[in-house]
């Protein structure tokens, strides 16, 4: 039996259980339509303005950084799997097996160091940094 059938079956169960709970709830729950209770919650006040607000640009920076590092972890996975086998097979020396990975990580570390030093992973800026930023053309 192909095991991905079982994974697919679990996916189906994972959707059916929430749907089942929703339908049970649909049968049980009352419905009292009244517009005022559908207002969004803003600490009990009448909601002001839209909700599509501007948020901190840092969320975007972090997401970009994530894309870089996530792809890099994907590329490291196969290496980690074959590393020990490759060494035990005796066909490659330690340096040949380890070197490329170290180089790869080193390049990434340069990237991280750059992002770090340029404040990409820094949430808030100190007044001095703000001043420096303001002076840039």
């Amino acid at each position: 039996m192909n095991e991905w059938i079982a994974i697919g079956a679990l996916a189906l169960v994972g959707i059916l259980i929430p749907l089942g709970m929703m339908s049970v709830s649909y049968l049980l729950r009352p419905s009292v339509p009244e517009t005022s209770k559908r207002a969004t919650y803003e600490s009990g006040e009448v909601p002001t303005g839209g909700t599509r607000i501007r948020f901190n640009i840092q969320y975007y920076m972090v997401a970009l950084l994530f894309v870089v590092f996530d792809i890099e972890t994907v590329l490291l996975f196969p290496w980690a799997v074959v590393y020990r086998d490759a060494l035990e097979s005796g066909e490659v020396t330690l340096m040949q097996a380890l070197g490329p990975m170290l180089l790869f990580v080193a390049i990434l570390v340069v990237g991280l160091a750059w992002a770090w030093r340029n404040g990409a992973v820094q949430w808030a800026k100190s007044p001095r940094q703000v001043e420096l930023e303001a002076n840039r053309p």
Partner: protein
Amino acid sequence: MAPLIELHSWSALAPTLILALTGLVLFVFDSIDPRSTNRSALAGISTAGALASLGVAVWYIVAGVGDPTRRGTFDLFGGQLIVDQMALFFMVVVAVVTAMVSIASYDYFLEHAYQAEYYSLMLLAATGMSTMAAANSLVTVFIALELASLPSFALVAILKTNRGSVEAGLKYFLIGALSSAIFVYGISLVYGATGYMQLEAIAQNLEGAEGFSGLLGLGVVMLIGGFAYKTASVPFHFWAPEAYEGAPAPISAFLSSASKAAGFVIAFRVFATAFPIETMADIGIDWTLAFVILAIVTMTIGNFAAATQENVKRMLAYSSVGHAGYALIGLAGLTGTGSNDVVLGAAMMHLLVYGFMNTGAFLFIALAEYWGVGRTFEDYNGLAKQAPMASAAMTIFMFSLAGIPPFGGFFSKYFLLTGAIDAGLLVVAVALVVNSALSLYYYSRLVKALWIEEPVVERDSLTQPTGLYVAIIFAAVMTVVILPGFGPVADTAIEAAAAVVP
């Protein structure tokens, strides 16, 4: 004589690796000293890296790396990358343009805030272009293409507060994304038809793809679309005038010379290696015909559009489209009736000469932007009186671009012409001559403005920024000097081409 140190085979990629390393060094520099405005150090590192790459590539060519009869070509990583003469030839083009642009940027980005980022992005883009020269599999072609494109988008838009620059970056990015999608879809179709990504393997398995000739044909057309984008030829040339006009002029020089050359090298290699003409003709896909049409349309559109421009930078951008059309003859002429190596070699020579004259021309625009004289032909009136040396250099570039005899541009065009006639493409040859004649009109218009016309407004005296001058004079000298030195260049190019085409 026994070599002192036997280099490992992957060191054949050294010209590319040096560029990548320089990019990383610049990142490290910026990490240690963020927001550094030490322009001398940054431009110095960048130029030194590009020159080192250039030196190694030239050394390899001279030492016979890639020459099948001497040190042999280097197939690396299971044939994913290949270092042959053609790869080295284009690595030279990329490195030399990068070096010139780096020097020129020293003055151009005087007040700019993101110095280190600028240089490292440029070096990374150059790495991508250099890798494109060596890419020998559709996967590496695509990765190298993206590595060259992604930094380019940022570079075009690097003048963050300049609306034109940001708009150009966005347009460039959108068309780039579109054509990348088309290109990668083409790759998937070719892979589907043949089952291979590696170029030689594709060529060997074309017979098996006869049942899928429609699929393969569509894939080939889509690949052409991807190349057309990178080389700024029809039908994906729209971005070129916008991006070149909006981008900072050194970047326009970089993109229109190095990036275009890199686009051509992958086109040459993919079509010459993976889709041999005879085999493809048996299947019923005659791609040379597509390139014949593209070459004619591209050079005509480029030149006609250039002739109507009032803005000098935009004129050069369209002329760059026209030159892409000339270089496409290299592929159109691979019909097998003429001498394939001569016509492909001629296109390679043209791209090398173009690397000097076009970079120089755009750097002159950079100089004009540095002075702040304006953008149109009238604004350039009478510049020769105040800056005779730069204007003389610009005159050389213009006449060389038009293909006037004493300069390098003439010879490469002459080879292209003979190659086209040899291949029996009389229509293309006629189009080449007519377009060159037309181009003389708008190139000489600028020369006339520089030397003959009187200035519209009085200008203050103009400074002489060292970096820009060095780059421009160097480009001008090379454009002239390449003529006596054309023998070895032509030999190298034709030899390199002969190694690629059967």
